[in-house]
């Protein structure tokens, strides 16, 4: 067993009266790809966002590569640089070119030279297939292209782990695969990934483990094959029944 890179221990989180994360315990090994699935409102996004502290937690601990998530401030910014995050709505910096979107972090956070950062950025944009759009602005790109740029922007920071929160659910169907392909290749290269998605094809192809959440709890987890064909809990069966018939 590889050393766990991300460890969540007894994590609890409320939004007002709503208990969104209930005693979450989870370990993610180096190079492991974990797909998180579950009904709407079950806390998947909150879990993802808690891992890089876009949401605070009330109790429990989250450690990344042995380091506990610090409180707000410089130390937290530092740690976040090691955790890539890809959002459902891409969130590219709207006033910056594609190239500048990718180089901002390396230049400001990693203190790389502009030339060096741009060279690396172009390699990454090449890799996700949007190098020829480098001088354009986000609004000029299709959703699929924007999401691939967002992945390149995260990769430019050389993250230890990448979080994806429904990266394809805002996309038109014909653009989903171009993004999933990039993610599959990342997974194959050994990137540690936590992916909230309902794309079962991706889970089957790339995930080591599927974690099923419902009502703020991890209800069951298994290999993708086992989970999809032989779910144990009624809640998972019920959920799978719903998404499979659609």
């Amino acid at each position, binding site marked *: 067993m590889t050393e766990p890179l991300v460890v969540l221990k007894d994590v609890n989180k409320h939004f007002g009266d709503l208990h969104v994360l209930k005693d979450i315990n989870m370990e993610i090994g180096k190079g492991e790809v974990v797909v998180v699935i579950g009904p709407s409102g079950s806390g998947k996004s909150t879990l993802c966002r808690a891992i890089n502290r876009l949401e605070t937690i009330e109790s429990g601990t989250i450690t990344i590569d042995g380091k506990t998530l610090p409180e707000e401030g410089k130390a937290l910014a530092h740690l*976040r640089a090691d955790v890539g995050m890809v959002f459902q709505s891409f969130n590219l910096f709207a006033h910056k070119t594609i190239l500048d979107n990718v180089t901002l972090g390396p230049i400001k956070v990693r203190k790389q030279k502009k030339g060096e950062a741009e060279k690396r950025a172009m390699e990454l944009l090449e890799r996700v297939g949007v190098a020829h759009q480098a001088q354009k602005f986000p609004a000029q790109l299709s959703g699929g292209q924007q999401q691939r740029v967002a992945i390149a922007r995260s990769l430019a920071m050389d993250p230890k782990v990448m979080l994806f929160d429904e990266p394809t659910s805002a996309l038109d169907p014909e653009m989903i695969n171009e993004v999933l392909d990039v993610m599959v290749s990342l997974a194959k290269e050994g990137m540690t990934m936590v992916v909230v998605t309902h794309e079962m094809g991706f889970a089957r192809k790339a995930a080591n483990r599927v974690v099923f959440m419902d009502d703020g709890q991890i209800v069951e987890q298994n290999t993708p094959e086992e989970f999809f064909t032989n779910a144990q809990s009624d809640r998972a069966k019920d959920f799978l029944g719903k998404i499979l018939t659609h």
Partner: protein
Amino acid sequence: MQEILSDYDVLAAFWGTIKLSILGTIGALILGTIVAVLRLSPVRVFQWIGTWYVNTFRNIPLTLLMVFSILGLTFILGLQLNSEDISSNVFRWAATMLAVYHGAFICEALRSGVNTVPVGQAEAARAIGLTFGQSMRHVLLPQAFRGSIAPIGSTIIALIKNSTVAAVIGAGEAANLMSVVIENEGSRFSVFLVFAIGFVILTLPLGLFFTSLSRRLAVKR
């Protein structure tokens, strides 16, 4: 019309208007930015001070602020901005009150600009490891500023026209001269025309400039 221009120093009066407007604008931009940062800060007391400022100065008529600066602050409290020269004291108070009053509007213009920036932008900035200051500087403020160019432009144009209110305390600017001309020559249409044209010359190009600037710099989403 010709004789007004030759008998009175209209240009000097408009120069007074321009100086008043420039000083007022610089002051309003500085005050407005400070108050906007107060209102946006996470500290309750700061927010409260900022809100108080905006509600107070946006709702007191400018004429009252002008009169108060001379009758209240200079005469009763003895606060002078130039104790040697009365007309310079008046002029400086006029500029200050223009700044104080319009600062409230600049603050709201900036805040509306901040509201054009989706929260996802700030989250993405934080997610790549930018500090609070860095995300402000490189991601949020540049977009907020672009989003508020049009309302800031409107505020500056309003400020230029509102500088005429300074005539109530006799600050040397266009409206002050206009009332002198009217007193001497009687109210003739040409008098109004001269001063109206003067203001249009000042504000019309500025309006066009701000419109094109906000269009050119608009953030496409």
